[in-house]
């Protein structure tokens, strides 16, 4: 197990390298550069050239990349063209909030999906099942920005239960302030989790080892906990892991609506302004997050399902 983890960690490096190279090239392929975004209609060729020189944008791309990688090895990720400050503290200060929001949203989504999926699977084919599935589909079709505004309107403005913006301080404060945002994102993801979980619960319910366990006389709750739930967790983790991109996309929208100064809102605004250094670092950090989630899920696979021997698996 330890060797497996070690191997995966080493593989992290080429992946991050690949992501950073692709991002570096990609943003420079997009029409318009930071000078254009900054100057707007005032972009005379002289002014544009001056800004290019100031930030090294007039150099050939390979040379720019060398400077960038050189900086990275010295833990210097560049200067923000717009804020004229070092990029690392600017970006990293936004990460904790986004992580907290992601975790909270995932918890919300599971808290909604697991009980409902269990209910639907156990009462399969009945009215309850269809009702839950209809609600899930409806929830899936509601755009998250609409849902967010609706929740603010209903629970923050008309009835003042939750705050409508800001991130709060302290553990309790943070949980309180992030409840509406996490609920919005969680409701967006829960339907997908629910469908997959329900489907795999149904399969497991009909599996042989379940009927065997029942026939042998094990109590229902033991059967459910030890066999059914355990074997369904994996598809759940898969779907959560697989949809991490969608979860991140939803969190970005949620950060915008609730005015949360997280990594997502920084990435979106820096794309519009073409602030290359911020885009590069923020993308890298999101990539790191996704990879870490993948690794975590794979490790959990190995822990939960002993049939999958990680040692044998080619990593």
């Amino acid at each position, binding site marked *: 197990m330890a060797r497996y983890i070690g191997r995966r960690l080493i593989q992290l490096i080429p992946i991050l390298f690949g992501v950073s190279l692709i991002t570096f090239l990609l943003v420079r392929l997009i029409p318009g550069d930071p000078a*254009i975004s900054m100057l*707007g209609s005032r972009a005379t060729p002289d002014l544009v050239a001056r800004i290019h020189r100031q930030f090294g944008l007039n150099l050939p791309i390979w040379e720019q990349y060398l400077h960038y990688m050189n900086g990275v090895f010295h833990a210097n990720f560049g200067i923000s063209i*717009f804020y004229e400050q070092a990029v690392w503290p600017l970006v990293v200060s936004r990460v904790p909030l986004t992580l907290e929001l992601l975790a909270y949203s995932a918890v919300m989504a599971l808290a909604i999906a697991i009980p409902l999926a269990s209910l639907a699977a156990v009462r399969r084919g009945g009215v309850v099942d269809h009702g839950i599935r209809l609600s899930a589909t409806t929830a899936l079709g509601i755009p998250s920005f609409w849902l967010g505004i609706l929740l603010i309107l209903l629970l923050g403005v008309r009835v003042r239960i939750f705050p409508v913006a800001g991130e709060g301080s302290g553990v309790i404060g943070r949980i309180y302030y992030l409840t509406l945002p996490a609920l919005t994102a969680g409701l967006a993801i829960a339907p997908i989790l629910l469908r997959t979980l329900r489907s795999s619960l149904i399969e497991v319910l009909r599996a042989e080892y379940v009927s065997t366990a029942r026939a042998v006389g094990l109590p229902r709750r033991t059967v459910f906990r030890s066999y059914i739930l355990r074997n369904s967790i994996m598809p759940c983790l898969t779907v959560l892991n697989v949809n991490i991109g969608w979860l991140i996309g939803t969190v970005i929208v949620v950060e915008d609506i609730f005015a949360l100064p997280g990594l997502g809102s920084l990435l979106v605004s820096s794309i519009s302004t073409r602030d290359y250094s911020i885009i590069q670092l923020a993308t890298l950090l999101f990539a790191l997050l996704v990879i870490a989630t993948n690794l975590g899920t794979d490790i959990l696979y190995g822990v939960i399902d002993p049939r999958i021997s990680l040692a044998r698996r080619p990593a």
Partner: protein
Amino acid sequence: MIQSQHSRCRRAPVILASLFVVVAMVLAACSSSGSPSTSSAPAAGTPVHGGTLVFARHADIFTFDPYNTQDDESIFTEMQIYDRLVALSPDGKSVVPELATSWSAAPNGLTADFHLRPGVKFSDGTPLTVSDVVFSLTRAINQQGSWGFLFSPVKRVVALNSSTVQFQMSTAFAPLLAALATFAASIYSESNFKKWGSKEGNHPLGTGPFALQSWAPGTSVVLVRNKYYWQPGKPYLNKVEFTNVSNDNSRVLQLESGTADIIDNTAPNQIAQVKARGDQTESVLGSAVGWVTLNEHIPPLNQANVRLALAYALDRATIAKTVYFGLAEPALSVIPNGTFYYNPNTDPITFNMAKAKALLAKSTVPHGFTLNVMIASGDTASLDQTEIWAADLAKIGIKLNVTSLEQTTAQQRYNTAQYTAWVSEWTNDTPDPDEMMGVGLVYLPQDALHTYFNDPQIAALVTQARQELNTTQRAALYTQIQTLYNTQDPYIYTVDIPRLYASAPTVHGFMPNSQGDYELQNVWIGG
């Protein structure tokens, strides 16, 4: 008519038509002649000292250094921290003293002297000296900076004595006063600037009504009252907190929930609802006008008749009513209606389908053609405006192909002249018409803002007006320019576009000027 927060209406949205009437009546009752701003605020009572104002804005700031500033939010924040030699008058038509109490120009117009107000202090208590003024303005006029063009004929700024500065110019330069009222000519502390080196953009020290307390990038900027401020009794507020709320709907909801006291960039369709709930709105016209910029290198846009036909087929009144909910006004000149020497009586282009048809008939494409129009995605107003225009153009055989591109991508295409028609707007940085005309109606240095418009007569008049110090004669020149413009029309002007703010009923004295400066030194929070 004081309304408390708790008694605000929470009815579901009312029928829009009746609200139009209410809005129109309120606007008519509150607007004073000559003032480009209208507000539904009640008449001010006695100012109350103290309190924190929370102002939610749609974007973050980037810097406090005027030399590098490009975005509106940084500009308006700087105008609260720094003062300038002169300021825009309340009616928006001229300039009044601020850090300079009087000024005079030499008869040949090549030098101008400004006398400084005595006893002014920076927010840390140190006195303002003439060398701070010289230092700040020397930076401002630097042609390497993006705002140097506002001061192009100015060669040097020198101190004549401890209370007088002199501008030395290569030619007479009438726009100087207006330029000195802009944020680009902000006065800041020389020693403070030199102390901070490369970080100077984050550590401002000025003489304005507020000083910087803290800035958390992405979240908020907190300003604190400048107790050494030279205007007695002001500012009333203790603190101002600018927060960063990019989502339009969230900003309005923050106002409704009381989280924010003032919000900017309110969507026109939400103004009626804001008012219905008992909040106030401030609609500021004067510095922005909508344009459709035409690339004359692409036929048939090289023919004035075609451009004019397109312009006469634009139903400005319907656009002002439908797209801007009555808050915009049909444009009557290529410059915004708050610009100095603006003249609405130069036979402006109006909505006239018969004339459009007749003009098109005189061109090489009498039966119409296909026009490619570029708009920035996410800009619903431009899109709706273009749809209305397309419906009318179809009647004379002109078909519009609309391409919606991301903002910076579209900007890049425009800057490299890879566009045919570009729906955008012009916002004055200074209220002097020379800014727009200097880049827009003169061929060099930017190909007349990438239109390739080249009319030597108009260009000569623009240069002449720049050097004309007599205001009456200058007015006559600009009238002549605007009249000639309406026969050529390189930029189809559409409507004058308002800046829309909304504020809580407890906010008093909030009246941004026509350039968008908040002037928060006049604001107080009361019952």
